[in-house]
């Protein structure tokens, strides 16, 4: 059997590979974790989608690389302003809250995440990150497949929750239906009709024996049924949770506050999806990206403070991703165009903080773009195997060994 390897870069058709141990310098062997479904200490994953393609080079700033300043005459962050991690990289000053968490060992930075033959379309590349299937489109998301494979009871309406106005592709599976919830106060039937109306409603919304056939009929009837039952249950189920501390009054702050409430109410929820953006900064990047990064760091800090106050911080892992990074050279509009590799953050009380992988070269570029050094599927495999203690079979195709980020 071929030895598992990391693909660490696809440059001009040349694939460079290295052994995972060489790359991360630590043993991969981990004690087995209890598989899903678990007990009261169920582990949870929060997936944060940084929509629009976050500029990774102004997030984890390569201040030690001269090419960065050469190609970023106006957008480059001055060495003195960078929140230094080491002689090569540091964080954007807007990420001060996250830097504090990094210094406390709660943040792992995975540098240069990407995939081979990167697509520069927002929509296709988002699809690739959400499905983990760069070669073909199979219609399910990687979290959806993970839930399907995990023996979770389909009767639980909250195995996973998407805090989003539209169900993201990452949550689409075949067996487990994931609710999309914009805000708790809007998640409920406002009808104050009498008992007769409620009972009639329950039977009518499931009516699929109609005198026409529609390809959407079964889907509509199922969602109406779940919506009605879920909306009656969820507010009651989470009502007992009192958040600790104040969250920023931002969309992400509100989403993470609700995520903490769901996690703290122990509904058997294993994955929560939240989104933040738009990072599509083709023009006048700095004010937009700085604001979004500040909102990201501040909301994550409030989230983990709240989780810690309830003793939940060690059972919640947060992972960020974005469909692509942005081109090294800034454009003429003080913005950046679509690029390739970018860093991911893993955050939580249960991991080994630090910097993982190597920063993409800024001298050897793929048509002006920094190329990936770690395949994002290695990170997903890490979450599945090391965090959830489940095999990747049926979830991630191909050989993508886990990284030693997670504490056993």
């Amino acid at each position: 059997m071929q030895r598992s390897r990391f693909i660490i870069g696809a440059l001009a058709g040349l694939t460079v590979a290295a052994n995972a141990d060489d790359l991360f310098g630590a043993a991969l062997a981990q004690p087995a974790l209890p598989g899903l479904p678990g007990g009261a200490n169920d582990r949870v994953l929060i997936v944060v989608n940084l929509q629009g393609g976050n500029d990774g080079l102004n997030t984890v700033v390569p201040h030690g690389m001269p090419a960065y300043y050469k190609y970023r005459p106006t957008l480059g962050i001055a060495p003195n302003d960078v929140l230094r991690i080491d002689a090569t990289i540091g964080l954007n000053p807007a990420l001060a809250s996250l830097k504090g968490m990094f210094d406390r060992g709660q943040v792992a930075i995975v540098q240069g995440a990407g995939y081979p033959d990167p697509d520069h379309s927002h929509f296709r590349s988002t699809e690739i990150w959400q499905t983990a299937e760069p070669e073909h489109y199979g219609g399910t998301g990687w979290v959806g497949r993970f839930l399907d494979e995990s023996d979770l009871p389909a009767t639980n309406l909250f195995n996973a929750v998407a805090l989003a106005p539209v169900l993201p592709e990452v949550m689409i599976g075949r067996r487990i239906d994931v609710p999309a919830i914009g805000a708790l106060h809007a998640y409920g039937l406002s009808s104050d009709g009498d008992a007769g109306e409620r009972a009639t409603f329950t039977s009518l919304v499931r009516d699929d024996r109609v005198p026409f056939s529609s390809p959407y009929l079964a889907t509509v009837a199922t969602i109406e049924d779940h919506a009605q039952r879920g909306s009656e249950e969820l507010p009651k189920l989470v009502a007992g949770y009192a958040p600790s501390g104040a969250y920023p009054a931002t969309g992400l702050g509100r989403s993470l506050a609700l995520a903490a409430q769901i996690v703290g109410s122990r509904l058997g929820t294993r994955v929560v999806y939240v989104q933040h953006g738009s990072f599509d900064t083709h023009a006048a990047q700095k004010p937009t990206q700085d604001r979004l990064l500040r909102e990201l760091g501040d909301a994550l800090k409030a989230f983990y403070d709240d989780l810690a106050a309830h003793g939940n911080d060690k059972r919640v892992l947060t992972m960020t991703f974005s469909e692509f990074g942005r081109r090294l050279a800034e454009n003429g509009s003080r913005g950046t165009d679509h690029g390739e590799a970018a860093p991911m953050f893993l955050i939580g009380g249960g991991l080994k903080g630090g910097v993982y992988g190597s920063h993409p070269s800024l001298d050897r570029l793929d048509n002006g773009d920094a190329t990936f050094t770690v395949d994002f599927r290695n990170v997903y495999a890490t979450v599945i195997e090391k965090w959830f203690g489940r095999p990747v079979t049926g979830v991630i195709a191909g050989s993508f060994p886990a990284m030693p980020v997670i504490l056993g």
Partner: protein
Amino acid sequence: MTDVNQSPSSPPSFRPAGRLPAEPLAAYTGAWDVRRAAHLLRRAGFGGSPAEVARAAAAGMDRSVDALVQFPATDSLPSGPELVADADALSMLPALRARLTDAGDPGNAALLTMRRERNRLRREQDRANVTWWLGRMLATPAPLQEKVTLYLHGHFATADNQKNVYGLDIVEQNQLLRRYALGNWRELTHAIARDRAMLKWLDNARNVKAHPNENFARELMELFTLGIGNYTETDVRESARAFTGYTFAPRTGQFYFNAARHDDGPKTFLGHTGDLDGDDVIDVIFAQPAAPKYFARRLLEFFVYSDPEPELVDALAALIRKNDFNMAPVFSTLLRSNVLFSDRAYRALVKSPIEFVIGSYKLFGVPDVTPDVIPVLGRMGQIPFHPPSVKGWDGGAQWLNTQTVLARENFASSLMTAGMQSKSFLGGGPPANARDASLLLTGTILQGDASAASLQNLEAYLDGHGTSANGTLSGENYEERIRGAAYLAMAMPAYQLG
């Protein structure tokens, strides 16, 4: 066929079961009734009032489609929204610049106050813009024109109050889309490349020779004309160079070709080499076989059913090509076609939130649109002028999740509680009994598309389940029960389908 033979890893298809008719675009000659009339009015517009449906059912297919395609002038409607402030107040540029020069301090409190006031005015104008358009959809005598305008808004999706698109930028783009709704869509694309809202939204106003900005050039091919797989990254970069210098004059807001910022060097784009400009690029694109196919697929997904068969796409693409992208004859054919009136297309689409809301307003005779409905539409997942991205709205199954379905039900509930006059859709006098009332309600709201069991349930509800003395609908709870039953009919799965 649906996915019987698909491997487990294929994406779910919402293509209707059954087979494509032999001549899908030939004129339909089958039966014509209330159900098909309502279907036509849903697809070619925003649904009909009970009276409109009855008229179309009586007129027959050809006369109904003629009336939609040869639409009356819409000059009697407001051509634009109410202006909340003049252009200077919305931009505040002169004032802000003066402040910057005076104080030189971007953190200056006076400056921040001015910015806040400006942003408040812009939000207010945006609300006026959205309300204006929704009002047109409700009141227009030319529903097809308005429906195709909504299609084009999703196709060339641009958002108000983002990327410095503000004031009347989006309204002017909307008027452009309406002008070309049944016009020539190649010419429309040339005009879109010069449209101020688009120049801002996809950054082409800043696309200059020294630093090309690829945003517009990429989406032009990926989302507006060809689709992924029909061009290369090199084509993106070369066409971005061709569009350098396409910008607008800040003072007038008019399109302006800045020759000094245009890259007039040779470019190679989709096999054509020369000093191409943006308009050359658009003409090259429209000569590609992929272009009419791309439009055909998107049109079928919006107007007919999801995941249309390749043969159907090819047939419509050939029609578009034959008419050289003049869309009036294309719509005239599609709206009379076998495929549109086949059972397979009937209720084979999910109503968009806009269709759901405007259709309900028409059904119940709501006279006009107020801004209160904007956040309601937001919870359902669609506010006009606010597409989630340049890709527009995916539609189909994407309209449906627990959140958006609850929002639809809550909208129906509030519509029935807030001042709906049951007389307007019950026709003459009150129905004699619960059975008649349930038939009347499901007939008007669902064209009878309810199961026998549901009819019985509604009847039992109207009867009061023993809370009223007998089955006669009279007395104090008459109005309340009719409204309750109408709400229940709107919550049924069939009412979510278009």
